């Protein structure tokens, strides 16, 4: 089954629940040694909201994402996921990570496991879902991202687009409260970008809370509620896609847009 074609995103008002902040970042600072990478970042993402993060390379987008599930340890500031402060380490942190899905630029599928085994590993080992049930749900997820026929293949036997869709299914299998995407289509050949974006758009339409680092302005226009522009470790601009693309208010954002929209 092919991934759902572009769903109609009109009429999804009410999807966002401003009363329920799913991700709350306050005063986030990150240093790598002497390098100050995140400088006092504040960001609140409501349940159901889709936030696209753009900005020049090196501006700290990946680091921000990675701080949200603590793949990077923060230097200062607070992060809450669904009202819970991010635990520092151990089992509590592992449990929280289960609620925060992450999709990587380089897929990072487990090479020694079949696609279906990639998808069921988390549910079986972390959520303690019975294996048969996890398989059934895993197959359903693979079907929904359009690669049910690849369930028993190994990652290396899939195209990049299929691998990234498998990675999305793996993240979804945990039933996360929020999904982080760090340039999910940047490693893909151009003809495979859309099959991944289509899956993401349909997730957005269903009300998944998403933070998406991407340079795909088409996706931002189609699916984002808000575009956040980062530069040099700060969020310098934040607005609806229409506002942001039509009239960016900072010089840096105008400059950035003119560069990426040339292509």
């Amino acid at each position, binding site marked *: 089954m092919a991934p759902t074609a572009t769903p109609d995103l009109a009429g999804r008002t009410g999807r966002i629940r401003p009363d329920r902040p799913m991700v709350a970042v306050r005063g986030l600072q990150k240093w790598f040694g002497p390098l100050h990478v995140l400088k006092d970042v504040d960001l609140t993402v409501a349940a159901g909201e889709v936030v696209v993060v753009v900005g020049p390379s090196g501006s700290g987008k990946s680091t921000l994402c990675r701080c949200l599930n603590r793949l990077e340890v923060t230097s200062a500031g607070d992060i809450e996921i669904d009202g819970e402060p991010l635990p520092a380490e151990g089992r509590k942190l592992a449990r929280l990570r289960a609620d925060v899905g*992450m999709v990587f630029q380089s897929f990072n599928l487990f*090479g020694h496991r079949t696609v279906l085994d990639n998808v069921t590993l*988390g549910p079986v080992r972390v959520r303690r879902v019975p294996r048969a049930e996890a398989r059934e749900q895993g197959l359903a997820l693979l079907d929904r991202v359009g690669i049910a026929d690849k369930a028993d293949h190994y990652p290396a036997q899939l195209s990049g687009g299929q691998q990234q869709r498998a990675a999305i299914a793996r993240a979804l299998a945990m039933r996360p409260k929020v999904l982080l995407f760090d340039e999910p289509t940047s490693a893909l050949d151009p003809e495979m970008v859309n099959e991944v974006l289509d899956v993401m758009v349909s997730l957005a339409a269903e009300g998944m809370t998403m933070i998406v680092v991407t340079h795909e302005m088409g996706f931002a226009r189609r699916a984002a509620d808000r575009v956040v522009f980062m530069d040099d470790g700060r969020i310098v601009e934040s607005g609806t896609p229409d506002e942001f693309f039509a009239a960016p208010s900072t010089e840096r954002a105008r400059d950035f847009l003119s560069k990426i929209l040339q292509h």
Partner: protein
Amino acid sequence: MDALTAHLDELGHGLVTTVHLTVVTTIGALLLGVVVATLRVCPVPLLRSVGTVYVEVLQNLPLLALLVLFVFALPTIGITFPLFTSAAIVIAAYEGAYLAEAIRAGINTVGVGQAEAARAIGLTFSQSLRYVILPQGLRAVVQPMGNICIALLMNTSLAAAVGVVELTQAANNVNLVEAQPIAVFTGAGLAYMLLALLIGRLAGTLERRWAIVR
């Protein structure tokens, strides 16, 4: 040739003891190797140090010295094991250090992205290791691990020094009677060679069977 055929029984016993010692020790060394390699990559600095000290100490002492120390020093503090058990413990501990280093090299071949993806779905450190990192890391070093097991087989002959009558000691005993060192030790050597070939074959087969589709 007569020197060999006349003592098949004795030599056979020695061979069986060598194989027994090799199998038991390999299993112990593999378990230890996995544990020590895990210590060496774990996030707790103290445990990492324990792993490092273990490897450094055992790799930097001669196996023979360890065997002699263990067998003759421990009884002075009231601990005694049967000789075979003593030899097995020491050889497993010693080869475990080498296997740990090979396994750690294997772990290092697994990209950081794999560990990050494992953590990102909520696996704990030990779960990531068990379900994601080790299965891939071990496969990458089957051949070097096989070579260490062959070295282990050869090193079991040092157990002779602490009174275990394995193949080399049996050959030596036969030679004391027959005074035919060339025939006796060539025979024993061929037996070692066959066993080593067998281990090499097994490693090759496992490597092929476990190859990750790339």
